[in-house]
């Protein structure tokens, strides 16, 4: 789980049509036309063999895999609900309704009644609408945390993998420090460093936890590619080092990173929920986010009305499961061991 999927075999090139691109003038002059053509042929043939067909192969296998389909359906529905939340939800998620606040006390939170299918939340707001709107915030927190973690991780990993040597060593020691703390403890530390929590401290903390994972993943994959044939061919052609990294090595390492990102999303929303549970979450009482609903109200009123915990928990479980299924199926699909 630590140094995950760094599979050298996955690193198939996909730089099909960029013939002669980035080849410096001088080198062309030195090489005979025939030699040049042969080298290009070599670069292209290694590219074609892995590249397009690997992705196509993986997609084909994904579409046949019921696990992937279930995962994709869950993820798709989740995103649709998030986009169309205002149209689906019967009420405004932050409005307090007199019908609901009428009998509302700490020990009595009204349940289902006409117009309010899931009853009230502790503040007299429509629980069902909050749940539906919660998909938006959850998607927002999950995506942002994943994207920030991925972005920083890819940056560190790419620099380490591209330069190697002492740069690599220095950056890997930085990731060591980040990995020296178990994930949730690191997140707690980061949140505790900020004087008070906001939605952004949560997103940031959850994101940082994943930075070393992405960094190591990408670095490993890029280092493996340094030795591979398509990089060698590109280098022989005289492609600039910068272009080798940006056009050949980086794109070919991204498959593994995208798979990891899918799995990270599930972890991110679970971590965000955990932070809320520990009282380190977003303090905005109007914000409807599943982790927040489960971690704060769900915890506080578990004895009075456990539904306040059950529904957001169920939503989190289903969505986390969806992303995990999809991610695992993708990981399996790009595994060269399963290629035919």
């Amino acid at each position, binding site marked *: 789980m630590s140094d995950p999927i760094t599979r050298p075999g996955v690193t198939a090139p996909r730089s099909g049509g960029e013939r002669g691109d980035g080849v410096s003038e001088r080198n062309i002059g030195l090489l005979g036309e025939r030699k040049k053509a042969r080298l290009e042929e070599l670069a292209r043939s290694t590219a074609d063999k892995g590249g397009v067909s690997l992705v196509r192969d993986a997609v084909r296998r994904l579409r046949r895999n019921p696990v992937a389909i279930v995962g994709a359906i869950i993820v798709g529905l989740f995103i649709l609900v998030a986009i169309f939340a205002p149209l689906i939800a019967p009420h405004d998620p932050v409005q307090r309704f007199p019908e609901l606040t009428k009998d509302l006390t700490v020990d009595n939170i009204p349940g289902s009644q006409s117009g309010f299918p899931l009853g009230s939340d502790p503040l007299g707001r429509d629980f069902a609408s909050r749940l539906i709107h919660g998909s938006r915030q959850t998607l927002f927190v999950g995506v942002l945390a994943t994207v920030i973690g991925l972005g920083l991780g890819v940056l560190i990993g790419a620099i380490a993998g591209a330069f190697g040597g002492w740069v690599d060593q220095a950056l890997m*020691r930085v990731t060591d420090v980040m990995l020296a703390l178990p994930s949730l403890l690191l997140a707690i530390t980061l949140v505790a460093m900020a004087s008070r929590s906001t939605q952004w401290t949560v997103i940031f903390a959850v994101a940082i936890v994943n930075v070393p994972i992405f960094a190591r993943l990408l670095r490993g994959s890029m280092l493996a590619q340094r030795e591979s044939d398509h990089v060698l061919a590109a280098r022989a052609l005289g492609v600039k080092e910068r272009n080798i990294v940006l056009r050949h090595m980086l794109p070919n390492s991204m498959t593994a990173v995208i798979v990891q990102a899918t799995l990270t999303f599930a972890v991110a929303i679970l971590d965000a929920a*955990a932070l809320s549970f520990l009282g380190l979450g977003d303090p905005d009482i109007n914000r409807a986010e599943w982790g927040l609903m489960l971690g704060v109200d769900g915890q506080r009123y578990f004895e009075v009305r456990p539904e306040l915990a059950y529904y957001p928990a169920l939503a989190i479980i289903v969505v986390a*499961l969806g992303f995990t299924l999809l991610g695992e199926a993708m990981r399996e699909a790009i595994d060269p061991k399963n290629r035919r």
Partner: protein
Amino acid sequence: MLRVIVRRLLQLVVTLMALSALIFIWLRNLPGGPVEALLGERATPERRVLLTKALGYDQPILVQYGKFMQKVVSGDFGNSIRTGDPVTEVLSRAFPATIELAAAAMIIAVGLGVPLGYLAARHRGRILDNLTIAGTLLGISIPIFFLGYLLKDGFTQNIHWFPPSGRLTTGIDNTTVTGFFVLDGLLTREFDVTADALWHLILPAVTLATIPLAVIVRITRASVLDVLNEDYVRTAEAKGLRHRTIRGRHILRNALLPVVTTIGLQTGALLSGAVLTEKVYNWGGLGTLITDSISGGRDYPVLQAIILLAALVFVVVNLLVDLSYAFIDPRVRVR
């Protein structure tokens, strides 16, 4: 081998030093500064100056860091802001509780996980396998504090099989030797203490075990499947060895190598999970301490000590696992 150990140990020291420096810088840059964190916002300027001097915050930063490290190495982390007790004392009370919980969880996870993963692999594609996989996926997708509440609600409210919180029934007379209550009971022959401690331990341990259990099952299953296809297994079968011998010597023994690594990595999941589990069951270990240190005004001396301790445990365990790997797997040893 020795070179590897020395190199890894050096790396470990560097990592921990860097972490301690970061924490030191963090504490120095608290909003309002550490003095305000100690005195509160409404302290008089005179008192602030006095405390700044007393704590040495008027000295150059490198001198301060040197002093800080000197104290840390000798085990002095200062006093808790909340209670005024020495941090070391607070930690030494909480640490065994967490270790006891984590160890119990690990025993459950390994004890159940390895056989389950093995069985799932043997029955690949059949109902037992599918159920197991579905279970593990659910296990890693459920927020464990929610699972904790479910179990607590299910087994302590209507059917009183287990106590809802704490480590011992109040009023029970126990002698503390090691701080591990189960062990203490055995050592002092107060077997009622052992029984009571175990009874309190079960639900939290099961809660905490879910994620490691799920991961161990999956790794074991995948690993056994890999080994089943190895040539030496076919050879063993062709030689006509008994199935039990093949299973034990050829399959399980080789399949367990990746599992050992996983167990080490799960220490992290256990420490993270302990924070959540302990809050649910009011366990009184490091997790409870973290939660209390954050919510009741941030108790920085305690927090930094816990962070360093957790990092130390995590890093050392992983180092030990890596090294043990070399001893278990001859292929690694040769290199």
